């Protein structure tokens, strides 16, 4: 299989960056979910998912985003998504995920958006 699912994890300051590769479907969703769960358990509330290398997403994969978003936003965090391929972007669009999630052209932009907010908070204090 050319496109086995893979997650590369990075921590950029307060932000956990998960880079997805390959196919996110019912079989691989569990792996993705446990990756996010781990981060959440570690107390990380700001998560960026880099989908630049994500070639397919199924409804089960989309469900993973949904299962954390509420909890993270309660903690004043978020899941932000960067670098969607057009085909995957279309799935997001069709389902209306664009109403719920902030999408960015690149993962870096998504990470920066978190950092800007933090700086904003810091200056407010």
């Amino acid at each position, binding site marked *: 299989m*050319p*496109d086995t699912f893979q997650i590369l994890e990075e921590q950029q300051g307060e932000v956990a960056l998960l880079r997805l590769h390959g*196919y996110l*479907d*019912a079989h691989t969703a569990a792996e993705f979910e446990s990756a996010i769960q781990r981060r959440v358990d570690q107390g990380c509330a700001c998560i960026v998912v880099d989908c630049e290398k994500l070639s*397919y997403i*199924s*409804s*089960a994969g*989309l*469900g*993973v985003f*949904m*299962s954390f978003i*509420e*909890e993270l936003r*309660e903690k004043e965090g978020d899941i932000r998504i960067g670098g969607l391929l057009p*085909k995957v972007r279309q799935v997001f669009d*069709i*389902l*209306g*995920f664009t*109403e*719920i999630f902030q999408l960015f052209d690149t993962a870096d932009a998504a990470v920066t958006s978190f950092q800007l907010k933090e700086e904003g908070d810091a200056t407010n204090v």
Partner: protein
Amino acid sequence: MIQRIEWFLIVVIAVVSCALVLRTAPGREPFLASDSVPASNSIQRVAEQGASALGHDVRGFARVVRAERARVLRLAFEAGLVEMSWQLRHPSGFLVDFLGSGREHYTATVDLNGQLVELRSRPREAASGAVFEGNPAEQELSRSIAVEAYAAFWNRRLVRGVNTDFGFRLTADGVPERDGYLFEWTSQPDPSGRLAWKLSYLVRGGSILQFSIAPIALEPLLAREREMESTFEVLIVGVGVIGIIGMLYAAAVMILSLYRARLPWSFVARVMILLGAILVLDSIAGSRYANFRVALHSNLPSIFSQWIGAILVLMLAVSVVAAGRATRVSADFRRWLGLEEFLRFRWSKASVTRSFLAAFLVSPLWLGISYSILALSEGSFAESVTLHAVAIQLPPMAGIYAARSLAVLIVVTFAIPLVRAHVRNRNAQALLCVLVASVGCVLAAIVEFPVSALLVESVLHGTLLVYAYRRFGALAAVLGGILSEPLARAFVFFERGELPIQLWGVAMLVGGALFFSVVLLLDVRNPNRAEEQRLSEEEFEALKRESERRLVTRRERLLGEFALAQQAQQRMLPDHPPSLPGFEISSICVPAQQVGGDLYDYIKISDSRWALCVADVSGKGVSAALYMTMVKGMLTAAAVERADLLAMVITLNEHIYRVIEKRSFVTMMLAALDPVTRKLEVLRAGHPPMLHVRAEGSVEFLASNGMGLGLAPSGIFCRRLNTAQVRLAPGDVAVLYSDGVNEAMNRDREEFGEDRLARVVSSAVGETAESIRDRILASILEFQAGVPVHDDITIMVLRCLHVSANQTAEV
């Protein structure tokens, strides 16, 4: 709402409890503080001598008095107050007669206003280290001090106020606090609990003027105490304290449950249950202590109060258990006041957990009942006094005394399953319990320490209780508890003169054995039980083989069940499309697994319009299938309620959002068709768009704005929701489909895609709806040949016929 009621209850109960405690608790004084026994001439004489012996030095008086106790007593002896026969005659008329009979026993006969009460004392512990010197009289005197010390040791704190622990109050520089008669030292009650020694002296201007020693009878003091602090006041304070603690616990539970999401919940729940258990055990010990004090008087109010105390504790236990159960069942602590959880207990069914809980539940009741019976039996109160005095006397002992309930719990949770796992035969189990208890009793007798007796008692009782519960239910356990303890106590009482406290365990065993014989007798009479016991080894093997065989067939059965589920789900889809003049409809749903999450339906939403629906529940398999049935029901209900597509979908979203798990959602395509006007109103909720192929071959994907159902609350859901309209012309074809169609993949992981779909439909645009449907399906299956079907496929084809609208088209 329920939460508010619970908070209200908590606050009200806590306030009432505080009020009870505050109203009743203050204003008490140690009753000896104002008490004075007029010193007789002879005592005054002794006192004067004692005072002169002490040289009027009040500094460091405490130390001197302690050191001089023996001397003072000897002075009393020399003054004729204490005679060789150890007879003390108090000026008030009480006669105390000590008879020394070697080093093992002392018998004291107290003449309380003509009623002779014989008391026994065992000074061994106190006297063993004592060296008796001097003439016989002095030796006896030393022994008397030993006896007294022993009694003090034994009965300390028995009567509140008497115990000053030799500690009279001094100012910082060692001077007694105030002038006048001060009762600097009061001996502890003797073993009867009715007599104490009092050493008193008069201090004025920092000098000791008078000095006296006298035996005092506690009986009138007890009566006095009863006046000051009625049975019911004691009870009320007890209720108040239990109420305050209980409500604090409740409030903690409520608050914690609010932050459930942020807490490691299973751990917190365990801790709270443990805390609750400790609370209950502590209350049991507390109520026992209170009841014990009240039980000094075997009158009706005190018996009554024992009952009430026990019931209170029981209620608390019930709340805690209900909390545990509610947490376990619904993972929701907020329902902890919901006693319905408790009422749902199936009392007859035995499991380790339930046994544990039941033991918890019945023990306070059982204690209350047994103590009531005890209080009723004349004279038995001395036993409870002694036993309890032991517990109160030494902190570690008190701990162990409270730990008897804990021992019951431990036995229930660990020992019983262990025994059951290794010993099959039930009678052998019972025998083992008796054996263990017997060994414990022997050990207790060897060690000669009441601690072990208490432990044995606990273990035995716990075993009995659980055994009875497991076999016969809660009622039997309660009855067993009621029966066995008084039996044992009766035995002890009967043999009281001879039986040392170490043999309590033996006594409990006798009581238990009596109970056991009743149990076993009942057991044999129970025909089902007898049947079970007659089960031979062969029969057992046969049963075992049978269960193994069942296990093998289980997989087949499951597969069979799946087939049934598949049929059931297919039946949920409409049998045939509605007959709409000028249109034909054909649909199919092919689940990827036995059952799936796709759904199609036709719903009449008004006299003129029909809604065609294709929906897809996220995920696949059983969970999706279950949601699919739910969505079908909700859709039908929403359509009845609302004729308007937008309103219908908004209602549907609300319902689905409320019940569906976070990760799941439903996408849906709704097309409302008016067959007369041929208008099609399309609403897309996160679903792939509708394909519209015109008769002349042009292709359009019709998509309105709308997100999936169950993803977001109404506010967000409605934000960009709208519908699209299209008017179908004769020969036009509309295709509603699920993403299993366009996302179907071939071996090279290419998707079937919208374009292929459009081509297939265009090429077949003149054919019947059914034919178009089959072509689409066939081309998908061909496309993904050799690759396992990966998602449910649903296709609905709507075709506008060329015939006039008033002709009915049969499909």
